[in-house]
């Protein structure tokens, strides 16, 4: 252990580590946002991003093209989210909203948010990932496909199906706006 610590200290902040830092820092906040969207747990999201950063550090040699760093790192975050979700059991409860409410109070905003989050949580991991990347990280569908590891057409189909599950009463075009 002492040897490892000594080696780490003497090699501290070498060029490779600086390059990794420069690469990782701008990716952390998107990764954190994705983890929050997947887990709905800020502390869990921070842990996931730190775990993903460690995985990225260990696998940095496998990244051939720095232009794909964002998709590569978001893919690692998504995998870590899947692992984190496997570790805990989550109950799904639908609160429901009275349709006649037209003026949104602060309480209603909270209820609506909770309702939507629960609906998101009921989606399967990969469906939720597509929704989070497309709607929350505002990635184009082509980039979403790269992170998910599917074709663009398959990803688009997955997105449409997820929208129908989330908002069955809303038209597809309206939801995609």
């Amino acid at each position, binding site marked *: 252990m*002492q040897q*490892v*610590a*000594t080696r*780490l*200290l*003497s090699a*501290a*902040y070498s060029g490779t*580590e*600086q390059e*990794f*830092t420069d690469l*990782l*820092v701008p990716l*952390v*906040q998107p990764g*954190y*946002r994705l983890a*929050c*969207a997947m887990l*709905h*747990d*800020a*502390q869990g*999201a*921070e*842990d996931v*991003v*730190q775990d*993903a*950063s*460690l995985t*990225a*550090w260990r696998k940095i040699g496998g990244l051939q093209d720095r232009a794909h760093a964002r998709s590569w790192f978001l893919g690692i975050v998504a995998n870590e989210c899947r692992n984190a979700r496997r570790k805990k059991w989550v109950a799904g409860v639908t609160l429901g909203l009275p349709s006649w409410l037209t003026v949104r109070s602060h309480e209603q*905003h*909270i209820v*609506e*948010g*909770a309702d*939507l*989050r629960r609906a*998101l949580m009921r989606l399967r991991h990969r469906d939720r990932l597509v*929704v*989070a990347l497309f*709607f*929350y990280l*505002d990635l184009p569908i082509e980039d979403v496909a790269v992170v998910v590891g599917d074709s663009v057409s398959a990803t688009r189909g997955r997105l449409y199906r997820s*929208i129908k599950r*989330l*908002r069955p009463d*809303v038209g597809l075009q*309206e*939801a*995609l*706006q």
Partner: protein
Amino acid sequence: MNLRSQIHSAIDDVAPPAPALPHDAVDFALSNGRLRNRKRVRVQNGWGFGMRRAGSLLAAALVIVMVVTLVAGGRLWRDWNAQQQSAARQAHIAELRARPPYLPVIEPGAPCPQSPLVYDDRGYFEGYGTGPVYAKGGLRYGLNSGTYFATSYRSDQSVSGLVLIRGRDLKTNQPVVFAKWPYQQVSKGTPSGNVIGTELVLGVRVELHPELLLDPSLRLPPPNDAWVGLEGFPNGSSGCIGIQADGFNADGSAFSEIIVVNYLLLS
């Protein structure tokens, strides 16, 4: 409100800002998973039995009485002792400050006479310098006011007491500024002198000072015993930086060392 806005709003409610996370994530990764930054909230269970609660309250009351007694009895002695220590420390710092800076001036275009990169006397800290103090630049931040490095300092075992660090650009004569390293669990250098500005480093505002003190009393056990401070070079800096380290050896003799680094070569 469309679906995109609804999702943004719903997720934003559970995604508070995490300004320190980029740095924490880098630390965690580069430490191979040893330095996780956790901010868990501990949930305390209530007491189950009234007797246990009463006994605990009594014990707590006794402890409070003892603490109050000790505090009242020891306060005078501690205050007097602290005053003596503080006065000695200030005198020590003033003595170090009184040593005149003798950093050389390098003509623009002339090569930067960088100090050798060597190991300290324990053989595991590699830094620039001829001893007994060594410096090495680490993580680099390009900020509004200039370029900042997390700089590590190490001293040989022959050094005793505080070491005063001052610096300037040897070609442009711009001063080097110092700030406390805000994140990592390492020995921290202590910025000293008047506050001459502030800067935002990854979401944390730090004060800028003209000096840095290396304080042995703030040194953690190895391998985290190198002092770390933020060292800032203003915009327009040539990158040829001179650092003057002043201190005393254990035998009472004074030392003053010039360390020259070229931070463009470190990147």
